[in-house]
């Protein structure tokens, strides 16, 4: 569990800090961060990650576009993706699922909710380092 490296993507510094602190409190100390989709791709290519947690609305490249990029890329296509976003209407969730995110959290999230979703995803998939 401690070996799993997370990539946290959100244009809000506040949100990145909160998610990262939650992950560390849950026993996931290896976390890198990015401020938008483009930055996330650069981090994936240079540092790798076994699990991506991403926001939706971001400049440069949003979370949905990032997800599609990851799924189209053979090297990263099986990396688990958890979307954490303020967008909570049904159409948005459907669109994210069609883009093949593994699960979806509507902000504000709780530590218990984050833990539950991560565990659900890890049970369902075999995370592969990118």
């Amino acid at each position, binding site marked *: 569990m401690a070996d799993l490296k997370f990539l946290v993507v959100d244009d809000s510094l506040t949100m990145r800090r909160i998610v990262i602190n939650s992950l560390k409190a849950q026993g996931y100390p290896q976390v890198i961060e990015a401020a938008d989709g483009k930055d996330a791709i650069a981090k994936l290519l240079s540092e790798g990650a076994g699990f991506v947690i991403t926001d939706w*609305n971001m400049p440069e490249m949003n979370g949905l576009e990032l997800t599609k990029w990851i799924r189209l890329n053979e090297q990263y296509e099986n990396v688990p993706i958890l979307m954490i976003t303020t967008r*909570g209407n049904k159409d948005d969730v*459907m669109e994210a699922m069609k883009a093949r995110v593994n*699960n*979806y959290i*509507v902000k*504000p999230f709780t530590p218990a909710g984050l833990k539950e979703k991560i565990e659900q995803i890890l049970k369902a998939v075999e995370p592969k380092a990118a």
Partner: protein
Amino acid sequence: MDNNRNSANEDDNEVGMIKDFIAHVRGIVPMLEHVKDSIAESSGRIPKASLQLSEVTTATESATVEILNVLEAMTTSIGQGETELKAVRTFVEHNNGTSESVQALQSIAAVEKILSETKDNSMNIAIALQVQDITSQQIAGVSHTIESIRTQLAKALQRFDDPKGADGGVGNAETESSPGLAPATHFDGEAQFTKSPDRQDVADEIVKQWAQGTSR
């Protein structure tokens, strides 16, 4: 002769009405000028309002990060306290059997509980600070709206000055953005800060259906 007199009276009435109408229209012109000046002054204030809203977001993010820094320091200190306490517990357990050691273990347990609750509370504070991200998106939505209004007002002012200009209509203000204004895709203007689980429940249901293949 009576017919001619009646016809002349009607003509006089019509001329009078036309003169009144012209005078009325002339009276409207200064009013329209006043309206135009008011629009110009009001729309001129909007960029400053947008900037002030942006500064609110920057300030609250800065303050929130400071609070998170303090919370992280607290969590680190609590962790150190828990480690020291474990060492004390180990020492006392090695010298167990006396009534003093029993009391000491009880005190240690009580302190461990307090530290654990304090750690949870500091995490809860950190989680509540998500309000900053959510409100910043709401503020971005407001900025976007008032900038759209400014664009519409600017087009209305153009029509005052050039009624037969190339842009005869108000156009689509939604597609235009002022310099420095975040595009609509960069934020969720309908973001909500709520503790109700309803929105997450909706998302969970869709994810569940998707996993089961029923919503494909």
